[in-house]
């Protein structure tokens, strides 16, 4: 039996179908989850995909955070279920406080879409074990509210605990403090990042690289070995 990975669709989610595809490309079963259902259909892990849930109105992720499905996700995440938040999904995770900090408008105020180089800083989370620490990868980035901020105490804690999961390389695209592109919770089961691994899993599509596939093979490995 292969791993079942849930992919949540909120109103305004855009990358749910791509994320399902990425899960399949990695060899797992993708299970669509709907924001109004509390039931997670016995999935082994959950991805909160990118997009503009609720149009990013109010604040990105602020309205989705209150959907019924998130009640269960919050509960299960605290119990150790692996959760990955990509872009808007990351924003939802910070709004729920499963991950610290917050996301603000990019410092240049524009939407930015580009191929982004990252360094994997923590290759021990549920979603990064298939990378090596310090590995450099390039995956698409696309956001307007991607500037990660937190107070100094939080940053110091993140750094001290090795919870900065990814850092931007070759130019910070949005003014994120300390070049942070993604972080993890203490247990390493909840990970959020702004760039989009699900757009980099097939050689022909997008940037033509498959650097993002490791997120999905990581979780498979983790679940199979668990």
């Amino acid at each position, binding site marked *: 039996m292969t791993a079942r990975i849930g992919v949540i669709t909120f109103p305004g989610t855009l990358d749910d179908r791509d994320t399902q595809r990425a899960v399949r490309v990695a060899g797992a079963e993708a299970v669509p989850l709907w924001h109004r259902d509390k039931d997670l259909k016995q999935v082994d892990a959950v991805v909160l995909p990118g997009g503009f849930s609720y149009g990013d109105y*109010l604040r990105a992720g602020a309205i989705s955070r209150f959907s019924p499905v998130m009640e269960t996700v919050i509960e299960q995440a605290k119990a150790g279920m692996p959760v990955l938040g990509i872009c808007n999904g990351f924003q939802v995770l910070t709004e729920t406080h499963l991950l610290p900090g917050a996301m603000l408008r990019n410092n240049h105020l524009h939407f930015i879409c580009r191929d982004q180089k990252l360094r994997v800083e923590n290759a021990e989370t549920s979603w990064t074990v298939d990378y090596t620490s310090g590995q450099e990868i390039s995956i698409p980035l696309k956001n307007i509210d991607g500037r990660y901020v937190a107070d100094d105490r939080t940053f110091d804690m993140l750094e001290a605990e090795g919870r900065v999961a990814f850092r931007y390389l070759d130019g910070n695209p949005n003014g994120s403090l300390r070049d942070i592109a993604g972080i993890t919770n203490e247990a390493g089961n909840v990970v959020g990042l702004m760039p989009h691994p699900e757009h980099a899993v097939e050689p022909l599509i997008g940037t033509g690289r498959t650097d993002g596939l490791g997120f999905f093979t990581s979780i498979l490995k983790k679940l199979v070995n668990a």
Partner: protein
Amino acid sequence: MARVVVDVMLKPEILDPQGQAVQRALPRLGFEGIADVRQGKRFELEVEGPVDDAALARIHEMAETFLANTVIEDFTVRVDEPAEAGS
């Protein structure tokens, strides 16, 4: 230094998708009894020198030509008075 506040709101007849999304979410969060929500922008300007009529007139002009898009937005200008503090 004095603070002048410029509030910019979409004109009443213009669709406010953000305000609508917020209003629709409220009952789900358990907040009833809010008939309408409109979301706008608030600018806090720290003004050097005295905020006299001339300064206010300049700020009014600034709001009209720059801070607000008067095709779709209205604005108000006022010298700041403290309000009930939030968190």
